[in-house]
């Protein structure tokens, strides 16, 4: 996260590959299910041996035995509809919810976040030197309408995507944050409205950032979890 600050996001999980490296983030939507970005995996049938989610920590590479740390093997991967850029990961077993590990709820189907809503991104990714590497950083962003966003992005933003306002200072997600949450505070609750996906440039000053719009695919998420 570029231009963020250390923070707390108990539904943000760290994805570790078989080399034990953090490579992406995800969001805990059910005790045994993590939502993340398709960009994080080389294919829908990538072998998952050795891939884990780590939760309950603020550190990118916590020491074994750190209090509250949980890590669970990824058991299965389900790719979302082709235009979704989404992946659902089923964990080998449910995680334990506590002060450090919490679920984030999903928005109603096709819900459109009103412009100016305050949202937050979180991740352990690249900070471009603006913050503390290796610990969880968060940054606050405001939602703008797709219409406004498409002025700058010249119509490239699709309805399955949503935008946040570009700030003059570089603030935004970057490599290593993909798959993480854009959580919006609505009616006294945090809701997973967007998923961090690669933009052409990280945290580009004055440019709206594009996220994946979760509400368009909530029906698919429920269906996979039920089936």
């Amino acid at each position: 996260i570029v231009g963020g600050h250390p923070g707390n996001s108990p539904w943000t999980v760290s994805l570790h590959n078989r080399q034990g490296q953090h490579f992406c983030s995800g969001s805990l939507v059910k005790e045994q299910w993590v939502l993340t970005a398709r960009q994080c995996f080389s294919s829908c049938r990538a072998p998952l041996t050795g891939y884990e989610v780590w939760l309950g920590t603020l550190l990118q590479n916590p020491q074994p035995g750190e209090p509250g740390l949980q890590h669970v093997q990824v058991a299965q991967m389900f790719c979302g509809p082709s235009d979704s850029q989404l992946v659902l990961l089923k964990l080998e077993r449910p995680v334990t919810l506590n002060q450090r590990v919490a679920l984030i709820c999903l928005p109603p189907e096709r819900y459109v976040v009103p412009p100016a809503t305050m949202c937050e991104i979180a991740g352990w990714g690249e900070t471009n030197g603006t913050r503390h590497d290796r610990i969880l950083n968060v940054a606050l962003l405001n939602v703008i309408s797709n219409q406004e966003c498409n002025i700058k992005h010249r119509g490239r933003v699709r309805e399955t995507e949503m935008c946040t306002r570009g700030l003059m200072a570089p603030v935004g997600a970057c490599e290593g944050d993909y798959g993480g949450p854009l959580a919006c505070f609505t009616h006294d609750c945090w809701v997973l409205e967007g998923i961090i996906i690669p933009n052409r440039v990280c945290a580009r000053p004055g440019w709206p950032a594009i996220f994946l719009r979760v509400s368009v695919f909530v029906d698919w998420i429920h269906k996979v979890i039920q089936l």
Partner: protein
Amino acid sequence: QRSPLNDFEVLRGTELQHLLHGVAGSLQKDMVDAEECAKRCGPLLDCRAFHYNMSSLSCQLLPWTQNSPHTRLLHSVGCDLFQKKDYVRTCIMDKGVRYRGTVAKTVGGLLCQSWTHRFPNDHKYKPTLQNGLEENFCRNPDGDPRGPWCYTTDPTVRFQSCGIKSCREAACVWCNGEDYRGSVDHTESGRECQRWDLQHPHVHPFKPVLSPRFPDKDLNNNYCRNPDGSERPWCYTTDPKLKREFCSLPSCGSEVQTHQDATFHCFRGKGEGYRGVANTTSAGVPCQRWDSQSPHQHNFRPEKYTCKDLRENFCRNPDGSEAPWCFTSRPGMRVAFCYQIPRCTDDVQTVDCYHGSGEQYRGSVNKTRMGVPCQRWSAEIPHKPRFTPTSAPHAQLKENFCRNPDGDSHGPWCYTTDPGISFDYCALHRCNDPPVSILDPPDQVQFEKCGKRVNRPDQWLSKLR
């Protein structure tokens, strides 16, 4: 400092069973490691292989290999099968004097005469354990420079070479040899290779047994390989004074980057076929030109990696990394991924289209977008369906055709014949009628429940700091 294991090829987690002799071979106990077993088996002429059992630290010497009659390989956790290379390698080193394979036909297609026979061609050879003259297999008892040969069963042709290729010629190198799986185990200076599963005489990060970090690099035995994107296959050497050295292997010819592998606007898999023009990192830092050594020195010279298309400063993946990357123009940041390049979808070519969300689709496409055949709607395996032809008559759930009985907004789908994936969307695309927009929906839905977070005081964070 060669290891006695260098004369063996290993099959991990494998046991060799002889169908006629139940338990075979002598059991050697308290073997510290497989090298101990190799020391025992190596000099014995009637030992051709051995089992090494890691849990009981024992090994079982075997007078046969997987090429012997009445044997079969079985999967066996905790047991590794080591077989003498001379008996299982299908190519020859030097003139093939040590070849003990089972080829029994000459280069002219003639069947070989058994070495115990004197007819139709008489000769002076007596099969012994030393000369390995066995059955009618090709051998080279006299060091013939043309390699292994045999007397033929054709009285008009006394003997003929068998044309078994040298290991160097048997497998050539495409591109930079990441896929080379040949059996050359010596470097270009003639030094023998160190086994990849040993850490002596040279310690190295490739640990094929302990951590399957390089599952697809075939780092078994001591054969030349290219696991790290070097310009050609290499190995660690058994010479303590020379850590690693390239191997001299013939090229298969000018690289043909098959066009269908090349992608230009997205990257597939790890992006080794990406040939687009993205030239900044995810963070927007411009890439360094590949033909430049500043600000970062490197070995990825375009002329050494002709099939990797290291043109200008485009993002590429010449070494099998996770994704396309480049050296950056920023002195403090050597390399970075170009994750801003979208991934190509895995989907197969769509063969039909549907209107709206496809609830009225009545076509006969019956495979998922990944190409997996659909399960019949009337079947109950591998997935017990929630929708059946009787429970959803409106949807006309015929055979295993793609349908949309639940009005899924993402289109027709089906239960799949893959036990691991209950359902998936189909190899169909939306016809060109514009989808219903969500941005001005009939009504703004509100929330009933939500996720909470205890906005705990900063004591945790401050302690962390």
